[in-house]
């Protein structure tokens, strides 16, 4: 305890320097965790979607559609429990063209039951006597009663200050024209992987309004026995191999991982920057720490004269560095984690961010390492000091 007291007194001796060093380490770790958080968020988005569901897309690429005729064929395949389909709508807000969120045309009566484990309806327009198809959440009755209806994520709903029953207007990009949609229900996610910033509407509406041009973007299906997923996927692809639209089937998780791999080496660049930041600040902090010790050479000589052991001096100096970097690192890493998870970054796709605890731990590890490395040389010097040499330097 006496040692800690000395460490504290030493830190308070030049408050300005302590504060400046603390702040620079704090900023370095804040930035390190922030940058790692971006890659964490990307990695986390590879885990969107489950291993228990399969996604079938056109073999050439996602951009090519699939014919609806494949629905019955997949559904009647032995071992397939349920099938649904969806299609990317695109579209822009004519007033705010940069207001981007995902919009999907889905087959409601099969889609919502498929994702019942991932999301649930929190608000919905009154049913007014209408009913949902069997097996679908009864709260969606108003959605099914209205062909132009849509369901939106709660986050999206709140951030746009929408109301139930409100009509939103979109301009089609893939499917030309003006598209009005009426908000009939709001969903909330049960799992983080199922985003809350998506809009779903009736595929039938898309089909009719596009003069029956619209097809299927992807089929999502669940095998009765999840351990058979890979085998069933292969059978589906084999069935369509020589048809007008050959397919590629993979788990939903692999499907979303494909999107992340599209970022190329950008995540790598970000990680390198994070390390460079931590390293450069670390270097400066180490030098400051050494200067702080050198200034106190004669104090250490006095302590030694008073009978302090070499080991105790070593510990005091090392602890001083460690306490400083660890506390600054802890504050910086935690602030980055909570700030990011609460408010995200002002960038498209990063409004919700995830920072793993592993990243915070990595940051803290770096802080400890920083303290050790920058403290060890001055600590060693201070402990090896010969009293005569040191005192000779006094005045």
């Amino acid at each position, binding site marked *: 305890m006496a040692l800690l007291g000395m460490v504290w007194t030493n830190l308070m001796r030049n408050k300005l320097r302590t504060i400046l060093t603390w702040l620079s380490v704090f900023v370095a770790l804040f930035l390190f965790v922030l940058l790692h958080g971006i890659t964490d968020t990307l990695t986390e988005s590879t885990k969107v979607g489950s291993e228990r569901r399969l996604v079938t897309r056109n073999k050439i690429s996602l951009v090519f559609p699939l014919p609806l005729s494949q629905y019955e064929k997949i559904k009647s395949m032995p071992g397939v429990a349920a099938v649904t389909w969806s299609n990317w709508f695109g579209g822009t807000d004519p007033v705010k063209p940069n207001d981007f969120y995902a919009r999907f045309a889905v087959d409601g009566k099969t889609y919502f039951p498929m994702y019942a484990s991932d999301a649930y309806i929190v608000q919905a327009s009154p049913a007014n006597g209408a009913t949902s198809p069997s097996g679908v959440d009864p709260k969606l009755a108003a959605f099914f009663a209205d062909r132009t209806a849509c369901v939106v994520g709660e986050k999206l709903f709140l951030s746009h200050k929408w109301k139930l029953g409100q009509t939103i207007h979109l301009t089609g990009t893939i499917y*030309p024209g003006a598209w009005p949609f009426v908000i009939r229900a709001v969903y909330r996610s049960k799992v983080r992987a199922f985003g809350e910033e998506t809009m779903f509407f009736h595929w039938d509406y898309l089909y009719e309004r596009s003069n029956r041009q619209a097809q299927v973007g992807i089929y999502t299906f669940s095998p009765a026995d999840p351990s058979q997923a890979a085998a069933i996927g292969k059978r589906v692809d084999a069935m369509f191999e020589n048809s007008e639209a050959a397919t590629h089937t993979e788990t939903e998780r692999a499907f979303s991982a494909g999107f992340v791999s*599209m970022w190329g080496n950008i995540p790598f660049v970000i990680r390198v920057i994070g390390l460079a930041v931590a390293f450069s600040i670390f*270097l*400066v902090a180490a030098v400051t720490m050494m200067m702080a010790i050198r200034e106190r050479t004669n104090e250490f000589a006095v302590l030694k004269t008073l009978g302090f052991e070499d080991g105790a001096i070593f510990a005091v100096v090392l602890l001083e560095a460690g306490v400083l970097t660890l506390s600054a690192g802890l504050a910086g890493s935690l602030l980055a984690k909570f700030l990011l998870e609460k408010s995200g970054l002002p*960038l498209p796709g990063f409004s919700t961010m995830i920072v793993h605890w592993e990243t915070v731990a990595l940051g803290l590890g770096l802080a400890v390492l920083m303290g050790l490395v920058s403290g060890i040389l001055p600590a060693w010097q201070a402990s090896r000091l010969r009293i005569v040499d040191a005192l000779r330097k006094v005045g």
Partner: protein
Amino acid sequence: MAIPLGYNIRSAIGRPWATLATAFGIGMVVAILVLALALASGFQAAVVSTGSPNNVIVLRKGADSELSSGIGRDQANIIKSLPDIAPGADGRPLASPELLVLINQERKQGKGTSNVTIRGVDSEGLALRDGIKIYEGRDVAPGAAELIVGKRIADRFEGFGIGQQVKLEQRMFTVVGHFSAGGSGFESEVWGQNAVFMPVLREDFQSVTFRMKDPARFAAIKKQLEADPRLGVDVKRESEYYSDLAGPLATTMRILGVFIVLIMAVGALFAAMNTMFASIGARSREIATMLTLGFGKGSILLAFLVESVLIALLGGIIGCLLALPVNGTATSTTNFSTFSEIAFAFQITPVALGIGMLFALGLGVVGGLLPAWKASRQPLAAAMRAM
């Protein structure tokens, strides 16, 4: 009276490690700033240089990129008959209706998959674009199931070597050539012929691009085409179309870059102030001596400010030198505006280096001001007592 510059230079050299560490800290900030700017300008250059201001691109009304567009053969013929289109060497209008699809392809070295743009062009397609050069192999033979592959795709993706076969729908295509396009986005594409693609891939075109006889008439051409009830199209200059596509991602890169650099600058600033304070603290008696000798407070302030700026500028130079080797390094990502792979190179411009040096200068001034002010305000008696 001013304190000689030599004093500051020798002081800085006298504490080499502290000086170098501070300079290095500032250097890292400058390096990352320069690289962030280089990344964004490299990306923008690649995408924007894809389009020419003398060319016009026609898309279906409301389509935000070629991918979501569709133009029928009849409409393409109407557009091609426009008298404003410049004639080519053979007297035919320099216009190319183009078909566009994406194929999902493996990157080399197991780095995942990405979408590669396949573009079908008419024979005018090459003549329309400046700087397209086949550097290996040959151009496609008319009517043959052959492809030419952009340099960036040939380098980065599996299966596009000359002589290799690529399966599109049910038909095999042979890669016969590799082309470069002056670093533009076309280098991230694979080209073939409409006539061969159409029966296999899709029934409509995605865009029509043509060269204007008189680029000054763009506004009139746009008005005429967009008003034509048979068409239902949006008309843009090709250059404007591509810069719109680059916009969102380039902005993201810049925001992220500036954001990182600003936070980092704060950290470096604290560190620079720290070393400057320490270096001044260790020199109280020198400062007291100078004050006693009759140097004014102003000259002391200036001297230490200059010292801080010198260290920061050294840092700026270190930063620029650290960043320079990255110039030209190619990287790639997906431009989500087109949903396809785009490769580009870090492009370190003199402007980026200039901004980096200015930034270093700013850090030096801001970081040095407080310590220098403190040095000049040192009470003489206290400073002398330190002796």
